[in-house]
């Protein structure tokens, strides 16, 4: 493979400074000890039930998400830059959502074509005129970041996508840290690693900050589609960590312009819902009428400003891949700042000249469905057969509006335990950015690793694993 940036090893074999103490530890620790600890991690994760239901070919199967013990280490100054860039980006995305669901300035000023916003399936007209507390729509954002090699041997961070609907994975971030500290406490005496354990406190504090006006001691709940959802473990985990109720739609009802939860002591008012259900299923009287997961009438209480939904409805219009190319412009437009984080150059197939480029160069590109998520409906050109490329070309030609394409980035790699020992595998990073009265995040995030050699797809649903992510304090 071409020029790949290795997070731990510099070209020529020298270990990068922030990994040197880890390397020393690795050299001093007997392989049998590490093997035993890895087995311990596997059995512990099985016992906790941290598994992931798989969609697609292996549908119906539950799989353990592999955990790798080599941490992904980020030096303090690098994280500082990332953190500032993330806060800036999420601020601009929230400003964009507020704008399109109120005065629509960015469209009127011609920065984004009106059709791109209002003919987008993720735009929710029902949100017009709803006064969202603090004008925050994406309270929890999971921004996917990759690092790609530059021709000069250095590497640069890029934002791959902004997940503003119901981003998941934060429970793995927390469990991975807990596991590392349990397995290798000695490592944490060699490094000063910024803690992430307080994420549930930050999350609860954020949710309370955006409670409806006039509510002093808001009741917060986590709304789950139920035990059959692939992320149910995380829903239960976060509710338990925050010390709030985990509810399903059938536990809630609307009466007298108020949302209530059924409890053994009678109805109790609910003020804030951390919802882990997609927009379409939230209220059968407003969205999909066949939804049995939501709460009939919820939208009317929301419109009255008497309940907060986190995230708000309709955030998908801002993380849609067809809107992604405009995020740097949003930052300039709303914040009058230059973007601190880079966007991946993106070809919009709805534009004629860009479409012909994509069709002619598909073997080199990553082609994605604009509404796709989770690594489904995408083509990684260089890793595909000629037939796969040809089939995809037909799909793109038939509906160019539905696709964008990007150059194949040489994702950075991090040493990872595989069958044959330790080998570099591609990684990404999903920090979880919280927006309430201010923007906050736990240092780092979830590092996902593509375990198949050469694979660039890190999604857990596509055979990816996870690593503990260390942001160094100094």
């Amino acid at each position, binding site marked *: 493979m071409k020029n790949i940036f290795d997070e731990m090893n510099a070209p020529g074999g020298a270990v990068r400074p922030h990994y040197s103490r880890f390397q020393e530890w690795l050299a001093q620790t007997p392989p049998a000890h590490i093997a035993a600890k890895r087995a311990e991690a596997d059995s512990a994760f099985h016992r906790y039930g941290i598994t992931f239901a798989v969609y697609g070919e292996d549908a119906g199967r539950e799989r353990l998400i592999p955990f790798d013990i080599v941490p992904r280490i980020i030096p303090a100054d690098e994280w500082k830059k990332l953190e500032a860039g993330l806060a800036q980006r999420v601020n601009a995305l929230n400003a964009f959502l507020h704008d399109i669901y*109120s005065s*629509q300035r960015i469209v009127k000023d011609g920065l984004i074509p*009106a*059709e791109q916003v*209002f*003919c987008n*399936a993720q*735009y929710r*007209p*029902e*949100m*017009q*005129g*709803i006064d969202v507390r603090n004008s925050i729509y994406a309270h929890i954002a999971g921004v996917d970041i990759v690092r790609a090699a530059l021709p000069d041997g250095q590497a640069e961070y890029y934002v791959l996508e902004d997940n503003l609907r119901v981003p998941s994975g934060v429970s793995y971030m927390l469990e991975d840290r807990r596991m590392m500290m349990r397995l290798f406490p000695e490592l944490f005496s060699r490094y000063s690693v910024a803690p992430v354990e307080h994420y549930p406190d930050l999350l609860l504090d954020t949710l309370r900050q955006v409670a409806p006006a006039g509510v002093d001691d808001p009741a917060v709940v986590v709304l789950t589609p139920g035990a059959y959802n692939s992320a149910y473990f995380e829903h239960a985990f976060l509710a338990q960590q925050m010390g709030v109720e985990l509810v399903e739609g059938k536990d809630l*009802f*609307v*009466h*007298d*312009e108020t949302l209530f939860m059924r409890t053994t002591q009678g109805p109790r008012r609910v003020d804030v819902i951390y919802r882990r259900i997609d927009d379409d299923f939230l209220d*059968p*009287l407003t969205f999909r*009428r066949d939804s049995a997961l939501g709460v*009939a*009438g919820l939208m*009317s209480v929301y*419109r*009255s400003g008497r309940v907060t939904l986190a995230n708000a409805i309709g955030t998908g219009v801002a993380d849609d891949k067809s809107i992604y190319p405009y995020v740097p412009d949003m930052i300039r437009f709303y914040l009058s700042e230059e973007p601190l984080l880079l966007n991946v150059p993106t070809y919009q197939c709805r534009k004629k000249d860009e479409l012909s480029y994509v069709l002619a160069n598909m073997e080199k590109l990553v082609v994605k469905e604009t509404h796709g998520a989770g690594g489904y409906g995408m083509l990684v050109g260089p890793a595909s057969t000629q037939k796969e490329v040809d089939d995809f070309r037909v799909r793109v030609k038939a509906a160019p509006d539905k696709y964008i394409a990007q150059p194949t980035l040489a994702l950075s790699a991090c040493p990872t335990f595989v069958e044959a020992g330790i080998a570099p595998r591609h990684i990404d990073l999903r920090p979880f950015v919280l927006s309430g009265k201010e923007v906050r995040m736990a240092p780092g995030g979830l590092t996902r690793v593509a375990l198949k050699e050469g694979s660039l797809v890190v999604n857990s649903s596509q055979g990816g694993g996870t690593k503990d992510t260390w942001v160094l304090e100094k």
Partner: protein
Amino acid sequence: MRLEIRHETIYRYSSPASYSIQYVRQTPRTEGGQRTLSWYIDTPGRRWRQTDAYGNSVLVLSLTEPHSEIRVVAQGEVETPDERGMVFPHDSAVPPLAFALPTPLTQADDAIHKLAAEAISGSGADAGLQVSLEVLMNLVSKRMAYILGTTDVHATAAEALAQESGVCQDLAHVFLAACRARGVPARYISGYLLDDASHVASSHAWAEAWIATANRGAGGWMGFDVTQNRLAGPELCRLAVGRDYLDASPIRGMRLGGAEEEMKVNVTVERSHIGL
């Protein structure tokens, strides 16, 4: 024209329901020269009123005591504009473009695409759009027979066109699907119809399409009563607008328990005579 309207909806349950919530969209709209002289809605339960994203006045009611019946009566007097084929300026925070996107009920299949192409050439932004839309209305109303009971309330436009029959709601959906298939923003209107000739009054549904060139380029909505095959006129009272039936239906709700449901609707619309 002054219309006196009474609209009664009764749900009866074979065993008591323990909970109900209903969205009632039965308050006449106030733009486009339509004026409400008096209006009152009688309902059981707790109720609150709000304006939705489309500018419809929605009365929400909830009941938490066991009940075997819900009776909603809306009545009052409305003055409709005398002109036929009026063009309204845009009137809500949802931009006209958002009405160009098909909904699940208004997805175009091959037959709808064909119908749309027959009537509307080009993209729909041209000056001849109004004429094209009248052709479309004529095609839909000729192709589809108005027959009660051949479709259920959740039939899609494609299903209704395939069986070449339906009620006013289905004809409106086919018209909307065809407009949207050509990129023309179009919306669903629910309301009342006074049929002077037959003296039949009813709940009714029709469509409005966005004429971008109207009002010296500012654009405007024009009403197409597909069932009657004529432009909207004074015999129509507008209640609610939306992307399709589901956004604008006069009543939509959910209950717990209640077993079998029976629904009865009585609408009377009469010309009111000043001085009587």
